[in-house]
């Protein structure tokens, strides 16, 4: 429920974020509420356009992980405590895996090392 609410708020903010005038915002809101153009709220979905299959897989895994953590939190599961009970070696293995997941799958830092002029070097 909270997620749906957040999505709608975010969708509304996205809808009005690049409108330069109050009148423009008013027109958009009228279109949304009076003409029932609900698709205007779905603008955040445009963020997914242009994403490759690989990106969607990464995104999917991230969403599932967040969803699972949210559910566990709602059920008052002590995540930190649970993590503390895992043997140190495995726990650190998990941390290092997460670190490398960010390195390998994350964006940012540009592509300075990519796109080499000559494939072979």
């Amino acid at each position, binding site marked *: 429920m909270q997620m749906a609410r957040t999505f709608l708020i975010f969708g509304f903010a996205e809808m009005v974020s690049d409108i330069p005038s109050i009148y423009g915002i008013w027109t958009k809101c009228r279109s949304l509420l009076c003409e029932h153009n609900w698709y205007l709220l779905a603008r955040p979905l445009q963020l997914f356009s242009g994403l490759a299959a690989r990106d969607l897989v990464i995104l999917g895994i991230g969403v599932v992980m967040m969803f699972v953590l949210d559910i566990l939190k709602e059920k008052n599961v002590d995540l930190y405590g649970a993590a503390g009970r895992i043997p140190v*070696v495995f726990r650190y293995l998990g941390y290092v895996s997460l670190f490398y997941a960010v390195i*390998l799958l994350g964006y940012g830092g540009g592509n300075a090392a990519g796109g080499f002029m000559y494939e*072979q070097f």
Partner: protein
Amino acid sequence: MNNFKKIVLLFLLLFVFEQILGFALEPVTYQHYLELELKQKHVEDMQPDMVFIGNSRVMTSFIPSVFSERLEEVDCAFNAGTGSQGIEGAYWYLKDILKQYDVKYVVFGLDYQTFLQEERVLKRDLVVLERIKSVPVKAGFILDVFEPSEYVYFLKSYQYRDQIWNCGENIRKKLSKEYRQGIYEDGETVYENLGFAREREVFGNRAGVYLSRPWTEEELDRERLAYLDRIIELCREEEVTLYAVSTPLTISTVCETPGYEECNRFFHQYLGERGIPYDNLNLMEDRGTLLPDETMNSMEHVGGDGAELVSAYYCDILQSRMRKEQEKNRLYDSVAEMKAGLPDLSYCDFHTEKLDEAGNRELTAKAFHREGVEVEYQFEKEAGGVTEVLQDYGTGETCPLPAEKIAIPMTLRARCRVRGGGTEKVFEIIIEEGTWE
């Protein structure tokens, strides 16, 4: 477990992950093969005494075995050229090589473009960094060239993260028997030996006019030029003989790029003042016959067998110089002289232009020819295996290409010949889906 042990465990795990991921993500590189060969030379008690340093033009132009076979003074040569190697990288890599081996001769590949102000390409420095063995030299290179924000790229897992979907292929190649034995798998660019990579493809009839970035002294990057002085100084300190050489570009690039003549003069003077012999192989006598543009792989790389010719030609120059004899192979002093020595027909600017919205086009061919020579052109179209003459031999440099004659795919051809006889040269443009979009 106490905190110290936890920290050790964390670093150990990071190290292990980095090694595994580096192995899986890093593609097969020439460095592996070069190192295997150098180790083998070490086993045979042979030390490299000549080294070529520079960018891909060096890597694809000089065959080390040609030099070690033809030059009595050289027992073992190796090519330390790497793709897009900058002058900073050349200095530090050379410093590392001179620390490792008792080198007598260094051939530095001088590429004018390297000295022009341009945006830095991080990857070219990362490749050089990977090749440097000595820790102090590596540290010096890092502090000199890399920004702290770029240090993350020292992690191979980060540097090659775009290879994540090629892991399987990388691992398969690295675990193969051929890889361990130093046998290179085929490709368009083929690693042959001791750092030399051969470009197999050649322009053939597709040769045209290729312009490089115009050269002006104002655009010269003085900081980069200072590295040339550092290379000269380094060779003096290590008592190594330094030669500078420019490898061939296409003839059209040398003749048509604005400022090339001034640039050639500038470096001749600059290196001459410092007592460094400099040879510009673009100005070789008979260049038009020996190494015409059709034999090049790209604007700045020799292709096919061109490397053998360039290596042998330069070898003879070095041989004469080392023995203080009269040089057999001569180089012109200027582009103007080289132009005057070109054959009647050398290259041709052949292109099409759209004339109107109906799709009618015009073909234009303008061959570079010697003064006083008149050139005739014939225009042809080949589609579906059928060749059609669009315009018979004549002195006209243009030919209409009506929309109804356009077929895709097709090959457009301009045949050029000197009026009254002489060799015919053929230039082609291949038109495919999307060529004119």
